[in-house]
């Protein structure tokens, strides 16, 4: 089994109100040392075993086509054995 772990964040420079809210909550609980918070998405895709480099291209395609909106989001991913 192979698992693709996709990390999606808002593009740099795009205001992240969720991150701001979480930061506010952390500060109000005394965690003042947190300088910045960004909230994004984490998606796990599970595959049967297969060719890793082919799979990489596939996952990249999925990210581009549907998993993210390139206007506002960036992504990275890694594929691990599960």
């Amino acid at each position, binding site marked *: 089994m192979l698992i693709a772990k996709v990390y999606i964040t808002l593009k740099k420079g*795009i*205001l992240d*109100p969720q991150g701001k809210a979480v930061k506010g909550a952390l500060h109000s609980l005394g965690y003042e040392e947190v300088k910045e918070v960004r909230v994004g998405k984490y998606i796990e895709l599970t595959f049967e075993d297969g060719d890793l480099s082919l799979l990489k291209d596939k996952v990249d395609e999925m990210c581009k086509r*549907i998993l993210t*909106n390139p*206007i*506002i989001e960036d992504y990275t991913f890694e594929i691990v054995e599960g």
Partner: protein
Amino acid sequence: MKFAVIVFPGSNCDVDCYYAVKDGLGEEVEYVWHQEKNLSKYDVIMLPGGFSYGDYLRAGAIARFSPVMEAVREEAEKGKFIIGICNGFQILTEAGLLPGALRKNEGLKFICKTVSIIVENDETPFTTRLKKGQEILLPIAHGEGNYYVDDKTLKELKENNQIVFRYKENINGSVERIAGVINKKGNVLGMMPHPERAYDSLLGNTDGLYILGSIVDNFVKGGV
């Protein structure tokens, strides 16, 4: 003239659109299931509000791959009037038929209320019953209506006069309070406020008919 109201799994303002056209405008209207591949018999296509596919992942992200969206694209190219309201707007941006993207509201909460909208462009086929600068009241009901475009696109939007509506006050964090935009060609409109919920005096507001009525006026005149 005949309106199509597209029904995606999870659409819920399909009913609102249907009755606004039927009772508010007195025009013909049909529901069209998202599996339909041919929209050529309709004159106006409405993409209604709601939560297509639960709005899971991102609002509109999954619906834009529905078979019907190919047909919507074809009709858009032919110059037919297409209006996406709320979730419909989100689907149109995800599909690339309109620029920009809609993010979670700045306040992170769903907002339902009636707000003031300023008309920015009165020359589109959707706004000829309005005057530039005019203030109208329209209901909003959305959790992800926070419009985003990058600076470059924003400049283009302005140059091409593509910003059609703005909120009078900052409601949801949208760039420059943008509430609705049109494509370059001027036949595909997307907006977060709900004109189709303001068609009946019993509901206390008929301002939506300015917009829906404009479509009818301009169609009679022969379209774009």
